């Protein structure tokens, strides 16, 4: 992996290698420590520390008035968080798994997303909903959904997803400070990925994409769980003489048109990579925007490397569903190189 763009002031806290789960834990602890209006609650987030241990030790450290287990009702968790935010608190709630967040959907779409608007800005709801999402961990049914577009399609919500431990810390801190409600999607197959980083949140803004690898022939647009796959594919493509740029979107809503457009206008080719199903998937929006904004720069259609339009497969079959390095390389090969110029030529 190339140098990760963790810009910003260095805090005194340089870590040894941390996992994404530990970075998230640290972000929650720091937010709880710095702002007494921050609360953390959900199912099993108290003494257990969450099923992925992201809230490990927080209840003991901050007390059960600020970090606590709730009854097992997702709409209740989000609905109560809305009321708490109305009364000046900053709730950070956990939905245990992607598909288990669906009972909260009405609270999220009809209230959390709309309260600011329907009160003409008088009631802000700075609520963060953390949702472990996506597959790749051998989960049984309902434990591996990529639910990002349900939220990204809803005006009033911000939707972000980190792909690295450093970003997990930075984005979560920024999400908690954000005056808008944030759907914080944690790619669960990256929970145990490690990185030596400075945990800081003064770097890249919450709504900006980051170029994780510079390249000149083709732009791979990825996020969350598929970023590492895209970076691996870029390494492999380099051996074949293709220079691949990799963008980590980070913010799915709002979308960072500027970074993506600038890249594709340089490379002339773009592929979107995500785990979620293709039809009406996030890649459809990205492809449409790139087509609208980069049409005269494109050498080939914008392609999508995604999961199939099937319910998420069981553990034994998920490898066939998830975008792989080979699938990305195949897609790169299909970008009509022969019709233009040799692949090694730098893009415009």
């Amino acid at each position: 992996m190339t140098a990760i763009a963790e810009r910003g002031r260095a805090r005194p806290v340089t870590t040894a290698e941390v996992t994404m789960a530990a970075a998230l834990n640290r972000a929650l602890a720091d937010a709880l420590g710095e702002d007494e209006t921050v609360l953390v609650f959900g199912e099993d987030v108290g003494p257990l520390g969450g099923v992925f241990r992201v809230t490990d030790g927080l209840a003991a450290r901050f007390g059960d008035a600020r970090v606590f287990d709730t009854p097992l009702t997702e709409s209740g968790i989000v609905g109560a968080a809305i009321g708490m935010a109305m009364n000046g608190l900053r709730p950070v709630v956990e939905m245990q798994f992607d598909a288990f967040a669906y009972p909260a959907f009405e609270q999220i779409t009809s209230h959390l997303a709309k309260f600011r608007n329907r009160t003409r800005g008088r009631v802000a709801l700075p609520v963060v909903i953390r949702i472990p999402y996506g597959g790749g961990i051998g989960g049984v049914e309902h434990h591996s959904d990529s639910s990002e577009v349900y939220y990204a399609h809803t005006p009033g919500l911000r939707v972000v997803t980190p792909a690295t431990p450093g970003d997990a810390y930075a984005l979560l801190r920024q999400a908690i400070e954000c005056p808008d409600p944030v759907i914080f999607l944690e790619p669960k197959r990256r929970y145990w990925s490690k990185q030596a980083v400075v945990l800081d949140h003064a770097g890249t803004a919450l709504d900006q994409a980051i170029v994780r690898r510079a390249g000149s022939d083709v732009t791979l647009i990825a996020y969350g769980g598929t970023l590492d796959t895209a970076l691996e594919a870029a390494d492999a493509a380099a051996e074949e003489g293709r220079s691949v740029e990799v963008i980590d979107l980070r913010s799915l809503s709002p979308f960072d048109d500027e970074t993506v457009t600038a890249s594709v206008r340089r490379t002339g080719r773009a592929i979107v990579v995500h785990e979620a199903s293709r039809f009406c998937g996030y890649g459809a929006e990205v492809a449409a925007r790139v087509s609208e904004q980069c049409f005269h720069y494109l050498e080939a259609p914008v392609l999508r490397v995604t999961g199939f339009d099937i319910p998420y497969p069981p553990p034994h079959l998920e490898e066939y569903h998830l975008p792989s390095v080979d699938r990305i390389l195949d897609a790169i090969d299909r970008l009509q190189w022969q019709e233009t110029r040799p692949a090694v030529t730098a893009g415009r």
Partner: protein
Amino acid sequence: MTSVTRAVSRGRKPRELLPTGTPLTLLEADGRTVRPADLDMPDDDVLVALHRKMALARRFDTQATALTRQGRLAVYPSARGQEASEIGAVLALRPQDWLFPTYRDSVAVVCRGVDPVEALSLLRGDWHCGYDPYEYRVAPQCTPLATHALHAVGLAHAARLKGEDTVALVMLGDGATSEGDTHAALNFAAVWQSPVVFFVQNNGYAISVPLSKQTAAPSLAHKGIGYGVPAMLVDGNDAAAVYAAVRGAVASAAEGGGPTLIEALTYRVEAHTNADDATRYRRQDEVEQWLARDPLARIRQHLLGRGLLDGPAIAALEAEADAEAAALRQRMNTDTEHDPADLFRHVYAEQTPALHGQLQELSAELAAAADDAEVSR
């Protein structure tokens, strides 16, 4: 922040959580005092205030329905016949408490002090709730059913964490008690011992569906025991009883006694809204029976009987109500200015570049349309 203990049982025996078999009542249908009284009779000045606000509410409600016929309101769900419940509950709140109303509770919102035109913003067809929730401690009128019950629980729980003496009262209808969020809210409030009053106005119908198709429970108040929430069944057409019941529940919540569920048994005299036809699903003789139990007439008879009200006072009150209605009619008869740009202003704290771009698109479209209109003139 103060630590919160979550005592679930509070030492109450299960039986003590149950409502009475018949509704708690203070005033008979003819205005006479019930003896022995089921609840503490409110002070005379409270009774006079209840009557006054109910008379104003009745007139407001009639005027609002009329405004739908004149095209000045997009729709209006009437609360006619429910004034004792609406007003009794609101007057029982303290200034520091919060009200979480539904779309049917406009008269409660106005009673809480919200300007009537602001209160009718949504029903007028505007995109926002009209008033500042923090100014009146009134949440936006909630259109989805029961979802706001959880907001009330969250707000009340936060108040407790912050050491504030605030109780949240949420208004629900009988239909809303079938929604999952009513269950969730009662359960959360009970487990957390949040200072919340669940005020269910059982008006007999969820649009066209009668209560018999909504639940098999002995009463809606009986649902409380399943959550460990004490419940009361109260005559919802008896303003004195509603006031006393809510006042008691608010006091209990404020003292750390946790939530209470109150079912106010009342009746929706009008159709669901002006757009509904109630003759398709209920008989007129049923409506007539309830008209004989009119809540406004009941408290008026009581006050007249006790010399707390007289003919001239009623006439003066009616004149005041008419004047308010006339003022409302006049203010609603002016066309409001709508700026489509407002639709883009409060989606996020800061307008996103994409929204800014879409606003430019719309502005260009409007400018072109204005030019076309100029040319054709």
